[in-house]
């Protein structure tokens, strides 16, 4: 309750400061519209914004789901096989030296202007954080548990599934929390590079037509979507793995 009051207070103060800045500096609306105008646009263009927001949400959710699944599987493969570690780990690290943003035009070329090039961007951007967080956790199983398993004559695969994976789920959860914030970035960049739908596309379109109020309205919706996604992932992770 106190937290809600606190957040609402901070939001209100920020909005007031925004409005005061715009009014006092007498900024033209095509440079920085006031919050009043942005919220009016948000309401009047709600159908348009919702249509594009749905597309972005679908891209983000698909990218998050696929990226998390792929990261989960990769981390387990890396943890289970020293051979996979020696071959794949340097490749993974090297792949991080290539900015994912720079790949966006190539992905658009390969996968087209539709949904999948954005899904691929979101997937690529979250794959490494998820894999890395989960893999690190898999390699840090408390040694006492592993020794207990050894004395019990455990099969290595069983030790992995019954002890190492469940013990590492909090690590997977922290990867997922990061992913929930990163995935929208990937989708938006994909939309900027080439799209005919989505909030990123709408923002570019609005910018080109000097509809800065619409741009800000789309930006606010994107931020709210990201916050909701993060909160939802957080709730799921807490329920399942943190206690």
């Amino acid at each position, binding site marked *: 309750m106190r937290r809600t009051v606190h957040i609402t207070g901070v939001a209100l103060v920020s909005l007031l400061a925004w409005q005061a800045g715009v009014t006092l500096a007498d900024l033209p609306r095509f440079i920085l519209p006031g919050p009043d105008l942005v919220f009016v646009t948000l309401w009047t263009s709600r159908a348009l914004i919702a249509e594009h927001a749905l597309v972005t949400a679908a891209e983000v959710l698909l990218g998050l789901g696929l990226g998390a699944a792929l990261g989960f599987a990769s981390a387990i493969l890396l943890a289970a096989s020293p051979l996979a570690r020696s071959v794949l780990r340097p490749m993974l690290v090297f792949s991080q030296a290539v900015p994912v943003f720079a790949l966006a035009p190539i992905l658009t070329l390969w996968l087209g202007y539709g949904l999948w090039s954005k899904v691929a961007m979101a997937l690529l951007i979250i794959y490494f954080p998820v894999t890395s967080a989960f893999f690190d956790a898999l390699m840090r199983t408390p040694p*006492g*548990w592993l*020794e*207990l*398993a*050894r*004395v*019990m*004559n*455990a*099969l290595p695969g*069983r*030790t992995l599934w*019954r*002890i190492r994976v*469940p*013990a590492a*789920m909090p690590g997977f959860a922290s990867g997922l929390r990061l992913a929930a914030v990163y995935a929208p970035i990937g989708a938006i960049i994909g939309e900027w590079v080439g799209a005919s739908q989505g909030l990123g596309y709408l923002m570019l379109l609005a910018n080109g037509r000097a509809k800065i109020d619409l741009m800000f309205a789309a930006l606010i919706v994107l931020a709210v979507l990201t916050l909701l996604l993060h909160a939802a992932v957080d709730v799921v992770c807490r329920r399942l793995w943190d*206690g």
Partner: protein
Amino acid sequence: MTAPPALHLSGRATIDGAPIFGPISIDAPPGEWTCLLGPSGVGKSTVLRLLAGLGDEVAFDGKVAAGDGAPLGGRVALMAQADLLMPWLDVTANVTLGARLRGMAPQRGRASEVLGRVGLADHAAKRPHALSGGQRQRAALARTLIEDRPVVLLDEPFSALDARSRALMQDLAAEVLAGRTVLHVTHDAAEAARLGHNVLLMTSGGVSCVTSPAAPTPRLYDAPETLGFQGRLLRLLMEAR
């Protein structure tokens, strides 16, 4: 359970070139409870780890063997100071962990029987975080029991418990582990005086056997002979360098 073998370990151990113990020789008679008593840092736990087939970090020059000549692997259960319960499993699932780790079906009937024996019948569906320290060690004891191994290695399993829980756990463990070859590492002279059919004193100077009272174990904690034995063990610990 197969017939409990005697345990033998002799030799010296180092970790990264630093001496841990030795040369020493340790013998635990079959089917009896042997306490390995000594101050912290003399390598008691390393002895246990070597007998359990662990201790990859230890350079050991010597011999680890069972009295019957057969390998020890698969005949040993280990109970440590930390209960090592998996927080995501309930008590029954923790107790039957070994079977599942070996790819076998968990024996639920046997689990409830064993949990009844250690006094946890009403807690079978609880997660470890809902148990007290003493209950957690009971669950660990149940997990050790269900493995039904003839050799049980105990690494200070009761040292983190309060005095009352510790005494109760000592009684329980002595009862349920009777007939197995138990090697119990401890730094508590009172515990060794209560539980050991045999007490081996391990100091930096080596290992020596201390004659135990004839009274059956677990000896009464306030019986004069137990207290006298405890005092003698403590004196030996104090006099050792």
